[in-house]
């Protein structure tokens, strides 16, 4: 499983779960999901549940609050790192 594979699945989940339109030009894999309001606290809890279920990983608390964990690309990087170390 590559980082791009994880990004694909995260993006698909976010687009469906939060009804992000296909033509939303502000949405991208390097966009800060929190600053731009795509994901709120409850949304992150749901996203986290998706990640742990889909990729069978546990995300460290420090990773959850890291700068990486604000974009799809960054989240995919964290997931891949967790998969490799577990």
């Amino acid at each position, binding site marked *: 499983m590559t980082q791009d594979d994880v990004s694909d699945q995260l993006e698909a989940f976010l687009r469906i779960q939060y009804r992000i339109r296909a033509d939303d030009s502000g949405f991208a894999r390097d966009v800060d999901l*929190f*600053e731009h*309001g795509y*994901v*709120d*606290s*409850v*949304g*992150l*809890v*749901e996203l*986290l*549940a998706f990640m*742990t279920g889909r990729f069978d990983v*546990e*995300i460290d*608390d420090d990773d*959850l*609050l890291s700068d990486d*964990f*604000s974009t799809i690309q960054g989240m995919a990087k964290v997931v891949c790192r967790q998969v490799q170390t577990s």
Partner: protein
Amino acid sequence: MAERLCHDLGIPLLKATVRPERLLDHLDTVLVEGIDWRDFNVHAGLVNAVLAEAVAATKAREPIVFTGDLANEFLADYHEEKYQGETYYRLPRLSPGALRASLVRGLDTSNREVGVFAAWGLPIVQPYAVAVDAYLDLPNSFLRLPDAKQQLCRSVFGDLVPSFRSGVAPRTLRASPRRQSWRRRAVHAWWALPRSRANQRGVVT
């Protein structure tokens, strides 16, 4: 409770009441200024709007609003709610630390306090925010305690919290060295507030 707190703090009590149909008059303001659509945050924003309207109507000189928001996020104190056989706000099985991190991370996406009070020209202070690092250092083992919030409150503020408020009689908890460290940090955080602000007459929500 509010009357008792105001009496103990020596500040006047401002009662704000609103009829249900008038509450929804603020809905547009809350949705726009609160930048949030989750039902529980819109509900909180509507209550804040009523309070803001009442405070602004007093025409107090340089009012400032102190709120207790953020404590629930910092202590991961959110739970599912059951009502008439239905379960609302289901939470996945996350460690308290992971839940806390998620809740804190998402704080940037809502303006239910700052934005709503600002709509009535009222600045607010969220005192818990000045000790965010200290709260985020609390371990999972502490967050899992059923009375974590009460223990922390008592450890930080000691006998300053009256027993009627915390449900724990003063002096029943002894501060460990770790807890004393917490107290120092919290006091330091409080004094870090600009003095001009700290001396202003406040409103507590």
